[in-house]
């Protein structure tokens, strides 16, 4: 590849790419190159299409484009037939022939592969007609659709690296910082610190060299937007980092990425190499005289390393223990040098702001939270996936309009945001506008954007116990409140779920929570009690049921439930009997069965397998 030496050459290159690759040819877009797509069998579908087109001698007339995550993970692998934009869901190898013969050759829609909207039962032909996409503003994620993440040319074709060329030639570093400040962009990793301000501090800090870090240690369970961005559009993150480095005056950058994301690492490595070949990274970037390199560092699987000081310790090859931030990392960070760290999604917002202007960007969102935010909508929800919405959108719009509500006609109970540092928001607050301030006021937080939806079968005490145990495991052990406090909270919660608690325990939990909040060293410890405190605040009755009545209303806490068989509903089909690992179920075929409570280990295998709702959980 020839190095691009100035903005004019970049523009010429873009035009050549468009002419060569993007004619008006029909195109099959397949969401393939992302972890969840692969798991859904996307590779097979791509191969089947390639083979199929060859069989019809169509390989030169029709393009196949493989992209990263298209957001709607529930219905993957997704196939879009351009130019009409017909969307087919959950496509399998066997379906490809019919798509070719019907849709591609004869312009007939294959009805059975269309997505059916769960609320109205309507069939949707295109993305625009799907409620899932309608209410979103996909400025960041939307680009995935046009890009094969392994092809830098695809990114250049949609004006990729244009913002960089513009910045390097036309905008002074101070003015870049001003633009970002004006845009109102805030850290998308959870802290919500104004990005422009951070850059300003980093630029003003004394010390050389200065470092730029991309935090891709996406540790919050239930959040995977950073993975999808790195897998689906790695160049947008790289471009953002280079612009940031130019603004701050840094020449060395790192991406700290989770070890559990092998595909993201792979795509990122490939993207860095291609960017170097075109001269977007390395020495004398686009002929401007500015130098910048990016190295990848894989994390070691420790949640606390998402915290900036812990991450930097880990980058230095040490255990990832955080330090107190009397001196900010923008002054003394990696190897005690000024360091600017931002999250993947924050970096991906930067080229967008430069390209479309701070004025445009700051019109999206609320007073203090600007732009869009990507949330991963998961758990007990019909339309699982990544959704990108303007800040300030109401929670119920996300859950019902975009998410399509709760599956199996169950009742919505709460939504957990902010990962283990966040809290649970109950149904009474369903009209809450989602932005940094409002979520914090509700006792939760934005976090990196995980939204785990819970229904009536989720026990809130169990959820609180889950998060405390999670954080107890992940506590680095450096400070006492976090290390010992979480251990004690875990014990008390376990007692509650096992029916061994009394009224005082609830007060003790609250007191302990407040103490940990006030005294822990880093943000992990300081926010650790949030899941407990927020569930006590909103679901006190459920705690009381466990403590006073020794009852788990959601039927989750094993020690407090018992399985039995509804004699009127049981048909004696024998399915449960086969599944029971303890031989606790007895009876004659075609007659109602019986569970021996002495033998039952409450594994729930019978409950899961019964087709007649005949297993009672009480």
């Amino acid at each position, binding site marked *: 590849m020839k190095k691009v030496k100035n903005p004019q050459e970049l523009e010429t290159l873009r035009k050549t790419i468009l002419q060569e690759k993007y004619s008006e040819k029909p195109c099959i877009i397949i969401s393939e190159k992302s972890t969840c797509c692969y798991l859904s069998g996307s590779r097979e579908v791509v191969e089947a299409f390639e083979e199929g087109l060859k069989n019809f001698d169509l390989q030169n007339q029709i393009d196949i484009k493989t992209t990263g995550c298209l957001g709607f993970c529930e219905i993957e692998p997704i196939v879009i037939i351009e130019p009409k934009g017909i969307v087919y869901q959950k496509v399998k190898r066997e379906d490809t022939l019919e798509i070719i013969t019907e849709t591609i050759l004869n312009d007939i829609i294959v009805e059975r592969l269309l997505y059916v909207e769960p609320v109205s039962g309507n069939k949707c032909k295109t993305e625009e007609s799907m409620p899932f996409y309608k209410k979103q503003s996909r400025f960041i994620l939307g680009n995935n659709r046009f890009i094969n993440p392994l092809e830098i040319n695809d990114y250049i074709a949609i004006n990729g690296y244009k913002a960089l060329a513009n910045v390097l030639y036309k905008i002074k570093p101070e003015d870049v910082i001003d633009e970002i400040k004006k845009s109102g962009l805030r850290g998308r990793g959870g802290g919500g610190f104004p990005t422009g301000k951070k850059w300003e501090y980093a630029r003003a800090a004394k010390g050389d060299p200065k470092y730029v870090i991309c935090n891709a240690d996406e540790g919050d369970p239930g959040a995977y937007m950073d993975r999808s961005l790195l897998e689906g559009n790695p160049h947008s993150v790289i471009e953002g980092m280079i612009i940031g480095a130019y603004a701050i005056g840094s020449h060395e950058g790192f991406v700290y990425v989770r070890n559990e994301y092998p595909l993201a690492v792979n795509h990122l490595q490939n993207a860095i190499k291609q960017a170097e070949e075109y001269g977007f990274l390395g020495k004398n970037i686009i002929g401007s005289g500015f130098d910048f390199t990016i190295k990848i560092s*894989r994390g070691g699987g420790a949640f606390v390393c998402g915290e900036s000081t812990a991450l930097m310790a880990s980058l230095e090859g040490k255990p990832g223990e955080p330090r107190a931030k009397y001196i900010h990392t923008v002054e003394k960070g990696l190897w005690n040098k000024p360091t600017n760290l931002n999250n993947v999604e924050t970096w991906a917002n930067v080229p967008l702001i430069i390209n479309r202007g701070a004025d445009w960007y700051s019109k999206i969102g609320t007073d203090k939270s600007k732009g869009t935010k990507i949330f991963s909508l998961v758990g007990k929800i019909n339309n699982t996936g990544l959704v990108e919405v303007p800040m300030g959108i109401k929670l119920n719009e996300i859950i019902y309009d975009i998410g399509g509500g709760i599956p199996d006609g169950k009742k919505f109970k709460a939504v957990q945001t902010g990962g283990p540092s966040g809290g649970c928001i109950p149904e009474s607050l369903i009209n809450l506008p989602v932005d940094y301030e409002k979520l914090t006021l509700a006792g939760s937080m934005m976090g990196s954007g995980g939204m785990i939806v819970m229904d009536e079968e989720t026990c809130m005490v169990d959820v609180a116990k889950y998060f405390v145990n999670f954080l107890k495991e992940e506590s680095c052990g450096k400070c006492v409140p976090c290390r010992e406090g979480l251990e004690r909270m875990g014990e008390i919660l376990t007692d509650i779920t096992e029916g061994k608690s009394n009224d005082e325990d609830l007060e003790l939990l609250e007191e302990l929570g407040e103490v940990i909040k006030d005294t822990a060293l880093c943000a992990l410890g300081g926010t650790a009690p949030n899941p407990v405190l927020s569930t006590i605040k909103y679901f006190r009755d459920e705690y009381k049921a466990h403590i006073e009545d020794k009852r788990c209303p959601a039927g989750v806490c094993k020690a407090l439930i018992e399985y039995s068989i509804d004699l009127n509903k049981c048909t004696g089909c024998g399915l449960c009997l086969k599944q029971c690992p303890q031989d606790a179920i007895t009876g004659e075929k075609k007659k109602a069965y019986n569970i021996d409570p002495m033998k039952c280990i409450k594994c729930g295998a019978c409950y899961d397998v019964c087709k007649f709702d005949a297993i009672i959980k009480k």
Partner: protein
Amino acid sequence: MRKQGELLPKDFRLLDAIIKKYEGKKEFLICILQDIQNVFEYLPRQALIHVSEKLEIPLIQVYGVATFFKAFSLTPKGGHTCTICLGTACHVRGAEKVLDKVKRSLDIEVGETTKDMQFTLKTVNCLGACALGPMMVVDDDYHGHMSQNKVDEILKKYSSRF
């Protein structure tokens, strides 16, 4: 047959090659250990000592890093590694039940290896494949939408024991 944990001369040559790849730089300790773990499936004691000497880092510090991060194991792994995702999305969809079933089937606790060295059981905080939860991974094969009733059928593919 080599004794468990004993390294051969060729293993040391391999270690040196890994260290050289990172130019023997101290700050790449974690990457070096990751590469060693990829080769041996765990971190043999002798390898840690060797790394400590070559990088001139006190052994206690190398040990500190090796025990701090979840990705590392100081004990040998079984032939297959079975990993259950315990991310929040998987948890609310019943991952705990799947884990309990795997524990019963393999008759081991999390972090342990079966006596016949066939399986090691691990958990992970989130694989980021939440739409497909609950998730179970055996070696590099991902199995989505898991339920306890599917566990034995999947384990069967990897061992004649089931």
